[in-house]
């Protein structure tokens, strides 16, 4: 079990984008959570729910519109240039697209060594040795050091991306859908690699995905996002055993299970319609327009409150 020392605290984080004269896209709207050292926090939701924006804002790749992100107690959105550079050594990111996330014109060695060069961690032979070590850690061959990204398959490219993030020896990595572009048999390789690295290096992950079964497998705790807000937040086994929010329930029942008999017996909870636009959203519960249980009270924004031990839900209808 990971020891419960808070590494990262996100408080009322907001990220809005101006898309028109008066139109504001509320990608992340008042989201709070914290991440312990060495744990994996999963963030699930459908496309456009703001999970990726949330991950990138947490790293300071986007400026926050409101709220704060405390990493080891310091607000990362108020750092000067030098401090920001120091922060990048401790928090890293792995991307979804194994193709656009690697510079085609650089060799694998230079891609992995980039962090080492920027922070002047090692030079000359030491740098070379470190890169060999990283290649070995992520399961690539040392002979790959002078090759170019286009010579590798999707899974191998994702390994290169992981090695690049590991080069600066971070404490925390945002994994932005790292496996959703990969084939099934390769997904398991990458997930196993990530969990192994977590065990050996004590890394904390913010694992963003839309695949609930994978999130369930890899995460200690899970947050479910819908249209920029966190609707449910709890331990992963709890979430799957006893989902409370109507959206979580629908989402869970929608995953097709690779078991024909289970599928034949399964009752899916249908949710009608599609996800609304995050541009100028209506006040109140964002899910209300698709929710069977919606009442008058849902016009007010439901707070995220603890209804059971470590089980937080934002829904008026949950007792």
């Amino acid at each position, binding site marked *: 079990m990971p020891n419960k020392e808070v590494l990262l605290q996100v408080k009322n984080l907001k990220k809005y984008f101006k898309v028109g004269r008066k139109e504001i896209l509320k990608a992340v709207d008042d989201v709070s959570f914290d991440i312990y050292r060495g744990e994996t926090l999963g963030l699930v939701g459908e496309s456009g729910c703001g999970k990726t924006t949330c991950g990138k804002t947490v790293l300071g790749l986007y400026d926050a519109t409101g709220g704060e992100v405390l990493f080891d107690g310091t607000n990362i959105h108020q750092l000067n240039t030098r401090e920001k550079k120091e922060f990048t050594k401790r928090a890293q990111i792995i991307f979804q697209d194994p193709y656009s996330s690697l510079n085609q014109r650089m060799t694998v060695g230079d891609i992995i060594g980039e962090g080492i060069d920027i922070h002047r961690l090692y030079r000359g032979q030491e740098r070379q040795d470190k890169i060999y070590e990283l290649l070995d850690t992520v399961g690539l061959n040392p002979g790959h050091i002078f090759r170019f990204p286009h010579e590798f398959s999707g899974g191998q490219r994702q390994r290169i991306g992981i090695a690049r993030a590991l080069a600066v020896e971070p404490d925390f990595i945002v994994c932005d859908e790292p496996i959703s572009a990969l084939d099934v048999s390769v*997904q398991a390789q990458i997930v196993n690699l990530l969990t192994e690295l977590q065990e050996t290096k004590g890394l904390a992950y913010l694992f963003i995905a839309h695949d609930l079964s994978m999130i369930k497998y890899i995460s200690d705790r899970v947050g479910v996002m819908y249209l920029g807000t966190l609707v449910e937040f709890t331990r992963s086994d709890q979430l799957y055993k006893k989902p409370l929010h109507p959206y979580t329930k629908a989402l869970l029942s929608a995953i097709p299970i690779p078991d024909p008999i289970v599928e034949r017996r399964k009752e899916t909870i*249908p949710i009608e319609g599609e996800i609304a636009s995050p541009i100028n959203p209506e006040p109140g519960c964002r899910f209300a327009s698709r929710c069977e249980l919606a009442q008058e009270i849902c016009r007010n924004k439901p707070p995220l409150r603890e209804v059971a031990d470590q089980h937080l839900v934002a829904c008026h209808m949950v007792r």
Partner: protein
Amino acid sequence: MSAQRIIDIKNLTVSFNTYTGTLQAVRGIDLHLKQGEVLAIVGESGCGKTVTAKAVMRLLPTPQAVIGNDSEITFAGKNLLSFTESEMAKIRGKEISMIFQDPMTSLNPTMKIGEQIAESLIIHQNQSRQQANSQALAMLELVKIPNARRRLKQYPFEFSGGMRQRVMIAIALACNPKVLIADEPTTALDVTIQVQIMNLIKDLQQKLNQGIILITHDLGVVASVADRVVVMYAGKIVEEGTVDEIFYQPKHPYTFALLKSIPKLNTNNQEKLYSLAGTPPELINPPLGCPFAARCEFGMKVCRVKYPVIVNFTDSHQGYCWLYHEKADRTGLPVQFLQGVESSAQ
């Protein structure tokens, strides 16, 4: 059970000429589709599943794609590969329809939705514009698009992804085709929308009794809709059977590994995921023997030099694997492999 075969593919080979050499995308496969069944073709990207579907529709790019001379795709007693382009145009959309992965690019952005549905009715069924329009309205209602009358006059950009996929299905089914080919129809959609679309396809199939070829990499989707499953790997079929046979009694190590490597909702967090090392072989110089040999933990010497012969496990269940040869070393094989095989092999 003994419904007639509406599509029968015999020894289909497709290769592509590329800069670096000839890529053998599909390397001699036999498969068939029966009336009213859902056949799922599963496999990883590049295994040849989409190429197979496009070969049936004759939508492969020429002259890059070359179909083998002795390949046959029989539909309603005729070999589609011998059809001229204009004969084929009469089949597409009328007898065999296809829906694609990306609902964003498969609709014409400058035409109203209603016109796009009516178009194929006017072409294939010689309907008047009025008839076609009312049929188009009926189709939109069939695929459960709310406010269908108003939606007919809208353009594709006014529809969301899930709605566009519904429109695509309406277009595909407008002429009541005998076969629907769905190429990853829900991959670009979110899970909650995916359920809606898959349920829709299933409902319509029961109503209209078509044969469906569903191409997907999502085993969950396969479990929920398919009757029969074909597993492809590196341009070859490795195993074929009913959905229960494939999920509960997989006989090929690749099928077995594929099923085991996806976490279920009840998988324990502490367990390691079963994972296959390596990646599928390159199809420019495919391996001589079984293409999966290099990643197979039960692989034998023979697997690397000779392509396995077909093994009939039941009338509906076939596989290509040397493990079922009488001389094969069967120690430590998963129980599923040996069920029903052991008794007769002695």
